[in-house]
């Protein structure tokens, strides 16, 4: 009996350690005063100081945030409208259209990146922020679309009918009933999209311009020239941001009652 209850716990502990030990090491070494990662030279904030004084890194972070916010915002609007529209449409080809809309998630990033690059140069768009935002927004749309679609499927149709029955026009029903009920899905879809945009390297490398760096690209190129514990500090900071976002998304999702 005892073995039966213990074994799953050991397995679980093992998995958690496997997943989070590297993260913990990175966080710990971001406070390491020594330059060598194999030696513990005492506690220090010096890498954080250096991080915030590295202007090119801050610039890359700024770019990444701008791209993340804009592309997840655009994806939020297009994905939501798409999901709401598809839910109402009575098309025969609905299934196919829905499948095509979510395809970008399954297409290998390297192919997407090449396609984007070819397309943007055909369009004669200047490579840089504009192409990055357009590219990111288009691979972010499926995340919002899928989240909102799943949520819409769970909403009782009679709620819409009840609102219509009580005198609401179709627009009013959308604003008063549908939108508040799907907003947790929109927000979590957008947060997911934001996270996807923030850590994308492959597609970004193809569509970025000569003078535009995003944070992941910057980190990647820096790794090639040698790792400094500054990267550890940067990772810790990004981890903190992600954590805040996740907690926020959870909080928003939980605050509103979903079903009666």
């Amino acid at each position, binding site marked *: 009996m005892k073995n039966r209850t213990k074994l799953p716990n050991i397995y679980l502990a093992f998995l958690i350690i496997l997943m989070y030990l590297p993260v913990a090491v990175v966080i710990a070494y971001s406070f390491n005063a020594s330059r060598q990662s194999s030696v513990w030279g005492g506690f220090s904030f010096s890498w954080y100081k250096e991080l915030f004084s590295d202007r090119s890194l801050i610039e890359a972070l700024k770019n990444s945030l701008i791209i993340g916010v804009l592309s997840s915002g655009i994806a939020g609007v297009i994905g939501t409208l798409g999901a709401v529209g598809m839910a109402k449409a009575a098309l025969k080809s609905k299934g196919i259209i829905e499948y095509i809309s979510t395809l970008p998630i399954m297409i290998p990033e390297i192919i997407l990146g090449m396609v984007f690059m070819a397309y943007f140069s055909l369009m004669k768009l200047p490579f840089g922020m504009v192409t990055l935002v357009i590219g990111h927004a288009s691979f972010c749309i499926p995340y919002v679309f899928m989240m909102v679609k799943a949520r819409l499927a769970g909403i009782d149709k009679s709620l819409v*009918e009840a609102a*219509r*029955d*009580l*005198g*609401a026009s179709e627009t009013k029903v959308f604003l008063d009933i549908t939108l508040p009920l799907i907003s947790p899905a929109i927000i979590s879809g957008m947060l997911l999209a934001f996270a996807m945009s923030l850590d994308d390297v492959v597609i970004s490398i193809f569509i970025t311009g000569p003078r535009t760096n995003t944070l992941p690209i910057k980190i990647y190129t820096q790794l090639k020239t040698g790792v400094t514990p500054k990267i550890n500090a940067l990772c810790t900071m990004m981890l903190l941001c992600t954590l805040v976002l996740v907690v926020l998304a959870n909080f928003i999702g939980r605050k509103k*009652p979903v079903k009666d």
Partner: protein
Amino acid sequence: MDTILELRNITKSFGKTEVLKDISIQIGKGEFLTLLGPSGCGKTTILRIIAGLEEPDGGRVFLNGVDVTEAEPNKRDVNTVFQNYALFPHMNVEDNIAYGLRIRKTDKKEIAARVAQALELVQLSGYNKRYPHELSGGQKQRVAIARAIVNNPKVLLLDEPLGALDLQLRRQMQMELKRLQKRLGITFVYITHDQEEAINMSDRIAVMRDGVFEQIGTPAQVYDLPKTSYVAEFVGNANLIHGRTIEIKDGVASIEAAGGLVKATVRDKQPVPGMEVTLAVRSENIKLYTCSSQTGIKCRLKEISFAGGMQKIFLQLEDGTEVVSSSLGMNLAFEPNSELYMSFDANHGVLVDL
């Protein structure tokens, strides 16, 4: 009585299934009309057509004399209490009830007053700030009713509003709904598949079957004088006996059935002698004798059961027809498997399907 709602020759099909076949009815102001029928008979579709949530394939809907067949649901002075209540989960009780008034841009003070009044009417004062998920089934039901009646609709549509409640609560809500309807004077169109509920509450009952009205009448008419064998069975749980008319004299038809002779009063439709007829007799009107008299059918006692102070005697006629007789009390006067004679007064035998 002034007509407030009229359905004229409504037809509706979903794909190849004909759900409504030429439905016509006039509903009076302040009337409590029940659409009674088994699930799938089309009663919910009628309600949805009145509310504007479904468009009929043919026919017209008139509300207060105005043709509203093509009007959007939000442009009709009709409100619905949905089967699953359909309360807005992200709004509290107060906001749910005020929703219709807010859309009509009613004055804020008036909204507050009318919401309070509606809550009092359904005995939920003080529940203003609760969310639907914090309410019990019965309370949700009351909120749904309050949300509809607060708008003072010309007609209130109720789609099996008590279906999800337990028996005791259902009985209580039946009384309350009926009282509410009398007090407000609003026309109710009520859907149920429970004949007891229909008889308890309605001014008129429209018995439905496969997209047509089998009979429309007061509860007494539908219960005591069913027009068809279907209504007799569904509403009155009546026994059906098949036979042949022998003669008609002084408004009473003599009928030969299962080797015996019974009599039935002839009403609006006349049978001809020699005609195959069906008789509906409710179980409480059947009398049993141990010896033959002039009228009566020979039968065999199969089983006796007791329930709720009622004694039910299951009988079988010689042609195999099963008949149930019931009486109050538990005095067991007959032996199982004994041979008896059943009879009934002529005015308790109703000729159906004529």
